[in-house]
């Protein structure tokens, strides 16, 4: 008698695996933290996604409209330039992906990070740092991102983002 494990892994048995969906669509919010990252995200946003939404946080330091009583108001812009409340956006997210260019101002990470930790939303940060990026520039970005990113990727170029979003079913 072949063992349970032998039978279960035969080519024939593999054909009986259930094909129904095993997850519901995930809400992934991609937020560019600086101007250079924003430029990269814009191109990506025009592709077809399963509901991924793209934002920039570059206007976070500008005066924001009054947010309803929340102690930590902050505003994002969607790609059409409309203001969006960070807390509202984060509250509806399964994953927040922050994208930063090493050496650029990633100061928005703390506001976004706080909103995520308040709502228990998983945060991933992607730092683009080419082989020639200085260590100081990178460590400045890390100092701002490490406290808030539960997963951090330092990639040499931007083409990683697309594969990552596909892999995450964004």
């Amino acid at each position, binding site marked *: 008698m072949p063992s349970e494990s032998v039978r279960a892994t035969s080519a024939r048995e593999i054909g009986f*695996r259930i094909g129904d969906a095993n997850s519901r669509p995930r809400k992934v919010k991609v937020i560019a933290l600086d101007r250079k990252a924003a430029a990269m995200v814009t191109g990506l946003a025009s592709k077809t996604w399963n509901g991924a939404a793209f934002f920039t946080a570059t206007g976070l330091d500008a005066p924001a409209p009054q947010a309803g009583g929340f102690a930590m108001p902050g505003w994002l812009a969607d790609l059409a330039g409309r203001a969006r409340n960070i807390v509202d956006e984060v509250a509806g997210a399964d994953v927040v992906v922050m994208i930063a260019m090493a050496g650029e101002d990633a100061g928005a990470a703390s506001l976004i990070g706080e909103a995520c930790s308040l709502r228990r939303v998983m945060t991933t940060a992607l730092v683009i740092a080419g082989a020639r990026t200085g260590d100081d520039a990178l460590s400045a970005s890390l100092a701002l991102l490490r406290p808030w990113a539960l*997963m951090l990727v330092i990639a040499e170029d931007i083409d990683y983002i697309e594969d990552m979003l596909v*892999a995450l079913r964004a």
Partner: protein
Amino acid sequence: MLRQEHNELLTRTGPGTDAGKLFRSYWLPALLTEELPHDDCPPVRVKLLSERLVAFRDSGGRHGLIDEFCAHRGVSLWFGRNEECGLRCPYHGWKYDVTGQCIDVPSEPEESGFARTIKLKSYPLIERGGVLWAYMGPPQKQPALPEWEFATVPAERRFVSKRLQESNWLQAMEGGIDSSHVSWLHRGELDSDPLFRGARGNAYNLKDARPVFEVVESPGGLYIGARRGVENGHYYWRITPWVMPCFTMIPPRGDHSVHGHFWIPLDDENCMAWSFDYHPTRALSTAEIAAMRDGKCVHVRYVPGGFRPLANKDNDYLIDRAAQKAGRTFSGVSGIAMQDASLQESMGAIVDRTRENLVSTDNGIIMARHKLMRTIKAMVEKDVTPPGVDVAHQRVRSAALVLPPDVPYREGAREALSVRPGVAPASV
């Protein structure tokens, strides 16, 4: 998830495939040196990248890796007579040298030169560090000999083993860079395995089962760092290097030897998990070697006479539900290697990656796939030499160390992650 066409691209390594071409750019571990222990010893069957071969060591000590089947009527040369500088087919006596050149066809007059018209496919096979390495790519692109540190230290500092894994290479390799499973599947081993226990870093691990990961591109592939907070706001880092296409190394613990792997495709549904242990600055002790032979840590015990693990599919990996219930093992399977292999084989020969639901902590795996795809594209379209061929990419180490909070580890651990002859590994 991974699109089906990408899954096909990365998992098929036979002749003519793109990932096969990638693997054919490197020296690959093919046999343990001890499998061909002396001149004129029995030949050994080898399967690599979906090609059936036979390896032998001739009367002059030269190693050959040639097409397994005799050019006359297709007999396996595993039955061959290894004698007088060649392997002779036992059926009608045709004889081949280590390059696959036929040197004798007894039925034909020698002067006819007929033997010279017959040649079996062959690949160079060289010895280094207790391993026989094969290169299966075009001769004009044959790279410099491998310089992985474990293969360059004196023999008494090293132990190498291999085991058959009945799954595609990629799901095995992905286990090697999937740091987030260690705190779960292998949690029992941290205290109990003689080749792990006692290190100060183990307490950091056990205190914090949810490390934060940081994945960084490196010239040869990737670093996957797992960080845990320790005293003074510092971070305890465990850094795993991955070098293309399939070299991984486990971060060290205390003064234990350091372990690592190659995941080599035999065919699309089987791979060889190569496991090495070495210490850069000291000989391994008799007790350590005995533990490794006994299947501890990354090694296994075997079904006698081969490289199939003793705990395997046929016996349901000797699963022990009482041990699982009692928490002695997390999955019920004992030993790190078979804990991994049993689960990876259970996925099916080639796992269907379109049904995965990857999460953020899988970014090491996502990035490795991304880099493999990018490398294959550049190699196929622009003839770019893949990372990992350059021996400088092979001079890497894993590391375990404590760093201040703002330091990028590719900077703070730069020395720790590179081979420094005569210097012990960075370890906690």
